[in-house]
């Protein structure tokens, strides 16, 4: 009996906690975080509704069972009613019970269907801000299609992130409030899923598909989520952080990003010959953000899935082979094509890989070499 009562009391606590005390929820982290969009609020409400119905039904069922367990036992001298299944109730319960359950089902389903219609399809005939979200092993890429900006978002190592480890990224997904935003989800390699609970939508990122969700964020703040679909080794290291700001601040941020983009493009387009030191410095930074997740900062990789680059025959072989691997990737493995990086970035990474750790190729690769190799 003891365990049964604790189960009930825990459930009561849970119900009370969820129904009454909004403030304690956040503290203990036992329910959804407070929604930051109308879509999320709708979903939160339907969640609470079904949970309350479920809890109520559970209490009803438990009460009958506990009553029966207490009174209908042999040790109390209770005589079994051998004809209970032949009473009118026994003969008609197969109609009564399904009818009752159907009533509950219809209540839940009709409410759910109403919410579903509101949140499922992206509003049509309206101007929406488009953000393309591409999942990669193991980072996110955000394309602001209306603004021509691209943001790469990666997890931050524990030393730097502290208590926010696995819930903080280097570049956040910055979004304006009070703007209808359409997210277009796709993937560059395997399945991923975009999940920021406050925005209330989870959608799979599937290679070859573009799926969509939408939201209109109603307050400023930082909202954290994670990749929700198993995507291989570092599935746990794909945090998603949304920073919502006022439309004015968002415009400032966009201008800033566009300026950076222009500067980077100018640098890459310059015909100057880069010194080995310059390339090594740039290459180290780029390697550690883009390559180290698999091949590790030490270059030792995680064999057999991620081969070491230190002492690798490709890295120490001819430059053409090395460039080909980086630009085109290796189909059927986790090594993706990095051709979307600009010539300077690839040149820096390749130069770095060829001249660090125990690798002593000694050569430098210039952006012009990369352009030729494409």
């Amino acid at each position, binding site marked *: 009996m003891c365990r049964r009562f604790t189960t009930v009391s825990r459930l009561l606590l849970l119900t009370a906690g969820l129904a009454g005390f909004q403030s304690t929820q956040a503290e*203990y982290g036992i329910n959804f975080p407070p929604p930051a969009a109308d879509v999320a609020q709708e979903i939160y409400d339907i969640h609470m509704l079904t949970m309350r119905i479920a809890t109520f039904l559970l209490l009803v069922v438990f009460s009958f069972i506990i009553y029966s367990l207490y009174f*209908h036992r042999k040790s109390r001298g209770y005589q079994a009613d051998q004809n*209970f299944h032949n009473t009118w109730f026994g003969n008609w319960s*197969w109609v009564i019970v399904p009818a009752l359950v159907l009533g509950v089902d219809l209540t839940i389903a009709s409410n759910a269907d109403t919410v579903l219609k509101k949140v499922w399809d992206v509003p049509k005939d309206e101007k929406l801000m488009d953000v393309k979200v591409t999942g990669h092993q193991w980072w996110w890429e955000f394309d602001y299609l209306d603004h021509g900006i691209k943001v790469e978002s990666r997890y931050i190592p*524990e030393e730097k992130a502290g208590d926010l480890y696995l819930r903080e990224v280097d570049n956040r997904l910055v979004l304006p409030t009070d703007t209808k935003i359409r997210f277009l989800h796709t993937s560059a390699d395997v399945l991923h899923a975009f999940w920021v609970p406050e925005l*209330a939508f989870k959608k799979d990122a599937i290679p070859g598909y573009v799926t969509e969700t939408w939201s209109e964020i109603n307050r400023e703040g930082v909202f954290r*989520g*994670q990749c929700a679909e198993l995507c291989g*080794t570092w599935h746990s290291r794909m945090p998603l952080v949304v920073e919502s700001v006022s439309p004015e601040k968002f415009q400032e941020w966009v201008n800033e990003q566009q300026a950076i983009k222009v500067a980077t493009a100018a640098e890459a387009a310059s015909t100057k010959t880069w010194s080995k030191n310059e390339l090594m410095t740039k290459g180290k930074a780029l390697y550690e953000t883009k390559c180290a997740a698999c091949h590790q900062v030490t270059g030792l990789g995680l064999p057999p899935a991620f081969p070491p680059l230190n002492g690798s025959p490709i890295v120490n072989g001819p430059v053409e082979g090395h460039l080909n691997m980086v630009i085109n990737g290796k189909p059927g493995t986790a090594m993706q094509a990095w051709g979307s990086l600009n010539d300077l970035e690839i040149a820096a990474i390749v130069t770095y890989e060829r001249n660090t750790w125990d690798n002593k190729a000694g050569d430098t690769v210039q952006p012009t070499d990369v352009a030729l190799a494409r």
Partner: protein
Amino acid sequence: MSYTNALHDEAHHHDNPTGWRRWLFSTNHKDIGTLYLLFALTMLFMGGASAMLIRAELFQPGIQLLDPDLYNNLVTNHALLMIFGAVMPAAAGLANWMIPLMIGAPDMALPRMNNLSFWILPAAGTMLILSFVVPFFPGGGSQINTGWTLYPPLSVQVGMSMDFLIFAIHLLGISSVLASINIIVTLLNMRAPGMTLMQMPIFCWTWLVTAFLLILVVPVLAGGVTMLLFDRHFGTSFFDAAGGGDPVLFQHLFWFFGHPEVYVLLLPSIGVLSHIIPTFARKPLFGYKSMVGAMIAVGTIGMVVWAHHQYTIGMSLGAVSYFMIGTIIISIPVGLMIFNFIATMWRGAMTFETPMLFAVAIILMFTFGGLSGVMLAVVPADMQYHDSMFVVAHFHYVLMPGAVFGLFAGVFYWLPKWTGHMYDERLGKIFFWINVTGFNLTFFPQHFLGLAGMPRRIIDYNVMFTEFNAISSVGAMIFGFSHLLLLYIIIKTIRGGEPATNRVWEGAKGLEWEVASPPPFHTWETPPLIRQEQTS
């Protein structure tokens, strides 16, 4: 009559084989049932060990014991070992032992095929374990890091261990289909004269439905993984968008199998409960006919709601609405089953031996798991729950009580019949309380983790999830180690104990209780006479 006589004569040619030949060449349903159960017990411990390693890793944030691929490999293997290695063979073991005894048949209809369907299993189990072990050898490729769902494109990246796994699934599937054919043929042809289908014990009914489900869905899984094999090695692109294929197609094929599979795991245990509760409530099962109707309805509707496992793939509004309503509708037959169990207890004269304790706990916890299932069926809310720890908590609350505890209850219920000895009731009750407490401690907190935002299948998590994970891991250790006590009780009962009477339990009804405990090597060589009170 001539049919039973023929079997009778044949049985004498094989009488009393000894040593390893008795087991390897066995065509006796009792011996094969025992083999199935022992195989399942072995796999239960292997699957359990992998689960405990997973929980040990998740005890604290950070990566302490395992590397990420090994963690994912364990996640994959835990599921496959438990589903295909432990639960399905254990249910098949119960079927082999009990169905011929219950329907008054001398043996299964196809005894040699029975032998084959069991002896494929050790080969399949070996392949399954090899798929786990191979990556640790030089040149063994990468580990299976996909989870048991094996979704491409990730499963195409995995090394040769995936091929071992695909062949293991083929073998397991062949074994299941053969066993299902055997059970259907036995139930339809070998019932004692006078026993109509609607007089058949409920356990037989649950297996009839289960066997049909298996025959319908296992080939679909076999086809799906074969296409995966072709994508991996023979240059096809069934699941590769770049070659005109569709990664989502695999998910549909997988869950077309995967969802009915849930009922394959559940129904035999529902059958066991339908015997245990009337026995210990000392009154007939409430609603025999509605029970049969409900399980047929569950099987039928269960075949057409598979995509509720994939709400997030971006289906159309119409499609998700259909799958949502279909899924919610399943609560009607399942609710009816639960109601019938409670009504059987109602106004009974209950006693609480270990099987009954498990039965009561199953009703309570399965109701809980079923209700969180209704929450998950609601599409908009599921867009939050999906792939979070909430789902992990939910399906353990349905599969553990719904399948595993039902099998435990069945083992305690029939162990005296099989061995001729009573198990130690005091130890049985101690096992029950530790086991069920450990279970709830493990999985109840995971609901909160999921709602607060912790995805499933991650090796490392943010400090905000620490408390509930720690509780869950402590629970998992209690739960895991409690099974050593189960093993001890079973061994102790096999080796000796108070002799069991034929009827064993005061309230037990049915043909299986009329043969001796333990039953002789061959039973019901002359079919029994069916009297009305023996059924129902």
